[in-house]
C-alpha cells in the first residue's frame, strides 16, 4: 500500500441516520487509478474472507476505549456527549457505549464487513490531477 498511496485513510462520520464508510487516498505519482483501486479492493476482500484474530480485535477495542476515556476527561466533552446521547434518546447511553464495543467479536466484524463491502453498495470518485 505504501508504494501505491502517499496517504490513505478509512473513516466514517458517526451520523445518526445511515452513513457512509469511507476509504480515500492520494496516489503516488505514476501509479494508475486502476492499480490503486485494485489494491484497496484486495484489502477489502481480505477482511470479508479472513476472520480477524481475536487479539487484533481486542487491540482496536482497547484503542477505542482509550479514546473515549480520554475524551471524557474534560467537563466540556462530557457536556457534549451527554447532550448528544440525550438527543439519541437517553443520556445514559453514554455509559453503555464501552460495553457495546466490548461485545464486538471477530465474527461480527466479518459479518458486518460482508454486508457493507458489496460491489452494488459502492460509490467511487476518481479524482484526477489535470497536471
Amino acid at each position: 500500500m505504501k508504494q501505491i498511496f502517499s496517504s490513505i485513510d478509512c473513516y466514517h462520520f458517526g451520523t445518526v441516520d445511515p452513513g457512509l464508510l469511507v476509504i480515500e487516498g492520494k496516489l503516488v505519482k505514476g501509479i494508475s487509478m486502476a492499480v490503486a483501486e485494485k489494491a484497496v479492493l484486495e484489502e477489502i476482500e481480505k477482511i470479508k474472507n479472513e476472520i480477524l484474530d481475536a487479539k487484533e480485535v481486542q487491540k482496536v477495542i482497547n484503542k477505542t476505549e482509550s479514546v473515549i476515556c480520554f475524551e471524557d476527561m474534560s467537563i466540556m466533552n462530557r457536556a457534549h456527549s451527554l447532550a448528544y446521547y440525550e438527543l439519541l434518546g437517553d443520556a445514559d447511553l453514554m455509559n453503555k457505549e464501552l460495553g457495546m464495543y466490548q461485545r464486538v467479536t471477530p465474527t461480527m466484524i466479518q459479518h458486518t464487513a460482508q454486508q457493507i463491502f458489496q460491489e452494488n453498495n459502492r460509490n467511487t470518485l476518481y479524482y484526477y490531477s489535470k497536471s
Partner: protein
Amino acid sequence: MIQFEKFQLDNGLKVLVHQDTSTPMAVVNVLYNVGAKDEDPAKTGFAHLFEHLMFGGSVNIPVYDEPLQRAGGENNAYTTNDLTNYYCQIPAENIETAFWLESDRMLSLAFSKKSLEVQRKVVCEEFKEHYINKPYGDAWHKMRSLAYTQHPYRWMTIGASLAHVEDATMEDVKDFFFQFYRPNNAILVVTGNVETEQVKQLAKKWFGPIEAGKAYVRNLPKEPLQEKTRSMDVRADVPLDMLMMTWHMGGRFDEGYHATDLITEVLG
C-alpha cells in the same frame, strides 16, 4: 460512569446536570435538535448560517462575546448534518452570565439586517475558501450527491450551493429560528462545579419564560438500498490523483454500528 440528573421545564426544555467538583469551571451546553438534514432542499446551509448568526446579537444583548469574556468565559459552536451545538466554559461562580446569554439567544435573535449581511459574507467566504478554491474541496460535495439520491445527507452543512446562502432573506432566517430554536427542541447540559438545585433555579429563571414552539416532527426521506455501483470522474487542478470510495453503512442505532466503527480502525 458519568453520573447526571435530568429534569424538564414546562416549556419542554430538557436539562441535564453533571457535577464535577474537581474543577473551578462550569460548562453550559445548548444542543438544538436541528442539523443540515432538516433544511429545505431549496434553502440549504441554514443550520450552519445560524451557527454564525447566533453570535450576531440577541434581542436584549447586542454582543455575545464581550460580556462572556468579561466574566472569564469562552465559547464556540458547531453544526453537523444532525445537530447544532453551542457551548461556553466559564468560572462556576459566574455561571449565571452564561444562562443570561444563552437564554436570550433562545428567546430571540436581534435579526438585524447588518448582522445577516455580515454573517452571510463570512459564510460565503468560508464556502469559497474551503469548498471551491481549496484543492479537493469539492470532493465531498460530489461524493454526497453521488452516494445519496434521497436522504438530505446528500448536501454538506455548508450548503448545496453558494446561491442558497447568498439568497437567504430575513424572513427565511426568522422562520428557521422559530421553527427549530425553541426550548422544546433543545437540550441544556450543565457540567462542572455546580449543584443540581442551583441549576434548576437558574434554568427556571432564565429559560422558563421562553415559550415553547410547535413540536418538530422529523420525517426525512429514507435512502433506498443502492442497487448498482456508481462512480464519477473528476479532473481538477490538484497535485495528486485521489481515489475516494464509500459504502453505505448503518446509522447510530444499527446493530452493526460498533462493529463498523471498529472496521474503520482495522483498515485505517
